[in-house]
């Protein structure tokens, strides 16, 4: 070590510095390999100024004017109820809601089959691979696939988000089920109960807090990503954004839609966070989970 240059010794002895240098080398290699032209950043800045000029002020007529071109067509008489913002946001929420419900209904039995403490090891491994395969594709790619299969519209969005929900929620659920205490399951097995009864009456109720919390988290996630899948024609507010972007380039209306979406997502995050906090284990006197409490929090609080 005494022959080694002092600078090398200095670096080798400092793990954070050592790791930073290695990461920096990889970053530079990746930039060269991808042929990233940093001079384009200058063009991007000038483009940003142009777009910002066209987008500001946001055009909130998207909240009042009827979208006669809406798909599916809006039959209501009131103009604001058929406006792009209301229709788009309603569709996004509906897509997220249906995808969460369908995803939960499919993922829970799969999660039971994937949990090593509830299922035979071979079955658990096979189901885990299926869930992993569903997670490989992001929701946007699932949306593209279903737009090709069932055509443009919210159905493609629901199917795409459901597929992704099954993969993602299934993983969260089997991890929650594997985390339940061993003893209630042993009581059930000593009774001679079949596997499905062990899961139905012991493991799922024991993990109910986590399962409800995860379902609400998934709904939040689906609202955010339900906006993105619309960009490829799978319904929701993203579809209305895409309509204004191409070919009209009405950036002021797109900005107004983004602001509306941001406010709705923030509101849902806050509501979901409050409801989920009731099911997160922080102290012994945790509330007993009730499914209706997940949707109607004031019923939950008035019961206890």
């Amino acid at each position, binding site marked *: 070590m005494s022959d080694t240059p002092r600078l090398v010794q200095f670096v080798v002895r400092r793990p954070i510095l050592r790791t930073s240098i290695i990461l920096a080398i990889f970053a530079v290699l990746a930039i060269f390999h991808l042929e990233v032209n940093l001079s384009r950043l200058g063009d991007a800045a000038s483009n940003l100024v142009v777009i910002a000029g066209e987008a500001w002020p946001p055009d909130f007529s998207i909240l009042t004017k009827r979208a006669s071109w809406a798909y599916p067509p809006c039959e209501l008489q009131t103009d604001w109820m058929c406006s792009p913002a209301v229709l788009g946001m309603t569709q996004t929420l509906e897509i997220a809601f249906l995808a969460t419900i369908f995803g939960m209904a499919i993922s829970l039995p799969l999660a039971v089959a994937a949990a090593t403490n509830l299922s035979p090891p071979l079955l658990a491994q096979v189901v885990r691979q299926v869930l992993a395969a569903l997670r490989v594709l992001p929701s946007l790619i699932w949306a593209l696939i279903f737009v090709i299969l069932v055509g443009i519209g919210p159905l493609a969005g629901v199917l795409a988000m459901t597929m992704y929900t099954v993969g993602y929620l299934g993983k969260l659920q089997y991890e929650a089920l594997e985390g339940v205490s061993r003893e209630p399951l042993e009581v059930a097995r000593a009774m001679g109960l079949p596997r499905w009864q062990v899961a139905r009456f012991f493991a799922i109720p024991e993990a109910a807090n986590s399962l409800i919390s995860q379902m609400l988290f998934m709904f939040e996630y689906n609202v955010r990503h339900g906006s993105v899948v619309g960009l490829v024609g799978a319904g929701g507010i993203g579809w209305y954004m895409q309509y204004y972007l191409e070919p009209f380039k009405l950036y002021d209306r797109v900005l107004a839609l983004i602001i509306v979406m941001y406010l709705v997502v923030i509101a849902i995050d806050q509501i979901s966070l409050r409801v989920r906090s009731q099911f997160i284990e922080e102290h012994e006197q945790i509330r*007993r989970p009730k499914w209706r409490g997940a949707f109607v929090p004031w019923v939950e609080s008035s019961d206890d």
Partner: protein
Amino acid sequence: MSLEPILSIRSAEIGFKDVSPLLEGVNLEIKSGEIVGIIGRSGIGKTTLIRTIAGLVRPLLGEVLFSGGNISHSTRGSIGLIPQRLGLVQHQTVGYNVLIGALPKSNWFQSIFSLPSVEMREATRKAISAVGLADKTLVSVNLLSGGQQRRVAIARAMVQNPQLLLADECLGELDTETALEIIGLLRAIADEQGTAILIVDHNPVRARTFCDRVLQLRGRTIIPLNEGEQEEASSLPQYRGDE
């Protein structure tokens, strides 16, 4: 008390694969209505013995016979288990935790749709009353004291009405009065339902007061606890049933 043994263990070697066995040459018979105590120092294999009898761990050698046959689906509902930490389903009510004792008697329709029969609900109500928790039926088990939680586990066993009940240190860390109540409930299960009870207790003096027989795990085998050893063991924390 029937003369036919409910549980027979013959020349069994108990432990885990690839590790030297915890117990060797285990021979044990338990008859209906009998309460048998098991004592022994920590880590000697008491819990593993209980889990082996419950069918959760396979014996390395020998036989564990239940009513003369192997433990299988035909013994469904005949073995009840109260583990060390009771095995209650957390965040669920007392009623739920007691009612699940009736699951072995339910048919698939009742199970799938959670529709317990009138008999199951009545048995649950009676068991909860018998353990003195009638006013706690809809209370979450997390909100109960340790003694109350043990009573819930016993009520679950009463509803299950097994032929053999395995209780792993269910008297541990209880005050004398509560321990007496739990012992009274176990005695009632044995006498009224004819259930054979195998109970692990760390206190040999207390075990002598309510068990029909007390066995001890010593070395790697199981032997009866004789009177002399009981006196020797009386240096341990005392349990006075008449207090």
